[in-house]
């Protein structure tokens, strides 16, 4: 049995109640990072808003996360590696092991039920058109007694691994092929897999299945889940929080299935699920690859992906980006990376409408005065809001996004996610955050 300490979820702000779509600046990695930070926040280890919480990132690193298992079918890079960007975005140290795994919902329950202490399971779906996007993450305690908000046990009930590839995509193929036989999939795929699990009790939630099929397999009326892929398995466990009970959780994919038993409602769940906006119509202008300098990429990487400034060793002034000569005292003696606040106020903003090769337009750019009296401004893109809607004086938080794809390399950095007009903090779901001790 593993100790599930906290869960975090993230849904992109685009789409509808029927399903979300990733924004043009989102991929499986940025979705996963958002969910992972929500999970660490639920565990009391990081604040997504980061308002006055400069040490949050360091705390997260210190908590004893020793391994990240990243499960998705949409790894941004197949060659070149996603691990460093994932750790930096989450705020974990560069000596944490990362497993990059291609898989769906059953693979995530397998990863969770078999997780070593101190594992953060991150599951992300950024699928091709037509399938919903989202991400969720689960933190397994460093041992089976720890956890600031208590923990619930997760235990494997059964697993069936079979093959019926009614949806398939071979290496090198541009898109998923569909065999298009729903009844075959339902009866000989999931149907047989669940039968062979020989579950002693009916699941309370089922992941990876359409609502109707999930309802047929579950006891009572199971909660609807926002995704169907890898992340749906953790959305299913998170749903136990609202259900207020434990139970068997089923995850199915084509002809395979895994079931786990969760021995109570998870206490610490943080949902970063902003209300959906209809997707923005964007213009894509073809053009030459956007150039990248890999030496410049490598030099900037830590500050840029960890949202850290250079703090002057002589006078303490922060500089973003870090620079040899201090902006204030002129010292060239050296600097040390220091975390930056993740919220701020728009000093000025503009919106680019003219077509830009390689970038979906329109998009807004803003200079943001960061909170906490740090006297640091950042020039960033705006995300999660209609282009042109962010105004001088508006507030928001800084979140990891794929700022550009440069010659095939995802270039990650931070973007301003404006606070919604009604809410205090952008991206917090109406249902809000619930953290508390379960035991």
């Amino acid at each position, binding site marked *: 049995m593993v100790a599930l300490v906290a869960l975090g979820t993230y849904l992109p702000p685009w789409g509808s109640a029927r399903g979300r779509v990733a924004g043009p600046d989102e991929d499986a990695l940025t979705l996963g990072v958002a969910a992972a930070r929500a999970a660490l926040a639920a565990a009391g280890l990081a604040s997504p808003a980061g308002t006055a919480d400069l040490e949050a990132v360091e705390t997260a690193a210190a908590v004893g996360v020793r391994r990240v298992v990243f499960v998705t079918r949409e790894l941004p890079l197949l060659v070149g590696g996603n691990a460093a960007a994932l750790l930096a975005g989450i705020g974990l140290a560069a000596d944490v092991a990362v497993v990059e795994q291609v898989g769906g919902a059953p693979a995530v329950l397998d990863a969770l039920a078999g997780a070593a202490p101190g594992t953060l399971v991150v599951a992300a779906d950024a699928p091709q058109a037509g399938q919903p996007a989202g991400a969720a993450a689960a933190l397994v305690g460093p041992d089976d007694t720890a956890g600031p908000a208590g923990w619930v046990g997760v235990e494997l009930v059964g697993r069936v691994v079979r093959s019926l590839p009614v949806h398939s995509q071979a290496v090198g193929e541009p898109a998923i092929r569909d065999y298009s036989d729903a009844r075959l999939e339902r009866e000989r795929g999931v149907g047989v897999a669940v039968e062979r699990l020989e579950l002693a009790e009916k699941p309370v939630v089922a992941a990876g299945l359409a609502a109707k099929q999930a309802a047929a397999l579950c006891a009572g009326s199971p909660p609807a889940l926002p995704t169907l892929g890898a992340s749906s398995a953790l959305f299913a466990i998170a749903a136990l929080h609202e259900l207020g009970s434990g139970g068997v959780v089923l995850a199915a994919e084509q002809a395979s299935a895994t079931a786990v038993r969760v021995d109570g409602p998870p206490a610490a769940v943080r949902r970063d699920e902003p209300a959906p906006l209809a997707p923005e119509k964007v213009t894509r202008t073809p053009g030459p690859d956007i150039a990248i300098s890999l030496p410049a990429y490598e030099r900037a990487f830590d500050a840029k992906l960890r949202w850290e400034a250079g703090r002057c060793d002589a006078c303490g002034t922060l500089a973003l980006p870090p620079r040899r000569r201090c902006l204030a005292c002129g010292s060239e003696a050296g600097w040390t990376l220091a975390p930056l606040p993740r919220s701020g106020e728009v000093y000025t903003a503009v*919106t680019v409408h*003219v077509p830009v090769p390689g970038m979906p337009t329109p998009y807004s750019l803003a200079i943001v005065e960061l909170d906490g009296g740090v006297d640091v401004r950042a020039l960033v893109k705006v995300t999660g809001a209609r282009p042109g809607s962010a105004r001088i004086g508006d507030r928001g938080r800084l979140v990891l996004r794929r700022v*550009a794809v440069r010659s095939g390399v995802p270039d990650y950095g931070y973007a301003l996610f404006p606070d919604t007009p009604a809410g205090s903090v952008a991206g917090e779901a109406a249902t809000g955050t619930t953290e508390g001790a379960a035991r």
Partner: protein
Amino acid sequence: MRRVAVVGAGMTAFGEHFGLGIKDLVPMAVSEMATHVDKGLDRADIQAAWFGELTTTDGFPTGILADTCGLLDIPVTRVENACATGNDAVRNAMFAVASGAFDVVLVVGADKVRESSARATFWEWAGLTRDMAWDYPLGLVAPANFALHVARYLHESPATREHLAMVAVKNHRHAVPNPKAQLRYEITVEQALNAPVVVEPFRLFDCTPQSDGAAALLLVGEDVVDRYTDRPVWVRGVGLGLDRVMHQHKRDMTTFPPTVKAARAAYAMAGLGPADIDVAEVHDCFTGVELISYEDLGFAERFGAYKLIEDGTTTVGGSKPVNPSGGLKAKGHPPGATGVAQCVELFEQLRGEAANQVDGARTALAHNIGGPTAVSAVTILSSDRG
């Protein structure tokens, strides 16, 4: 230092010169300059040249100037200082003559923007001015660099988008009689306000076109002026100013400190002030930049620029006409050529020969800002020797 005078000036028309390469435009401008030297120019008199060019389209810039203009026996120095290149080339040449090192020197500015595909141009030019890791991937197109300033300026000052439109209307009107201008047609405030958005708050008519062109000046020392003309235009002051290069490090974005510094230096050298300027060519790559520059150059009090455009002060016929040539907005903007071409216009203004003549102009100012907003160059010219 010796006094230095401009005794000849010429330029190509600005426009989309698809049929002409940089190797055509440069000698065209130099030859036109030579024909405007009142008492004639023997090219063998030219002792050195400064060539302002921001990007090179056909290879090695100084070699191209020497080769295409028949000046193979003199030193040629390239000046590149973003959009302040042209007036900085004037500045460097001026010091070379003032020092006594040379008596007769050539200044050329040129650029050929419409030489690569429109799709490639943006990223090529962004690479010249942006931090490769931090800013470049943001898609900070040229208008966005200035729009970040102007958006804040419109927020803090009483100026509105209508005032931006009025700058465009004025400069388009000024360009109509100028045979060298790229956009020789009038527009209305309504047209400007309703044009397609480029980068909010800039619409199409708030923006300079993309241009090709070249301009040339002949600068000589006071001892030899009489050999070339009886009506010299004196270079009274030059100045260059810089600022932090990244927008996030500029504390007050409603002003351009490089302009303030460059103007201060040029006014001090000339022993003149803003009130002495009869006509100015001001860097109006985007309309709002002209407004902010009125304040930085001392023509208006802080946040008072809108009054000058509202009451016609800066229109030809007003008390301080700005951009009688049409400015970058309507004359065009091949960056390396722009500052030199401003001085060509002012040379003609101060000799009473301009297409859109400002009556009785005796002292004039040329101004560039670039990098995108981290460098400025200012040149003060006068028909008074001083």
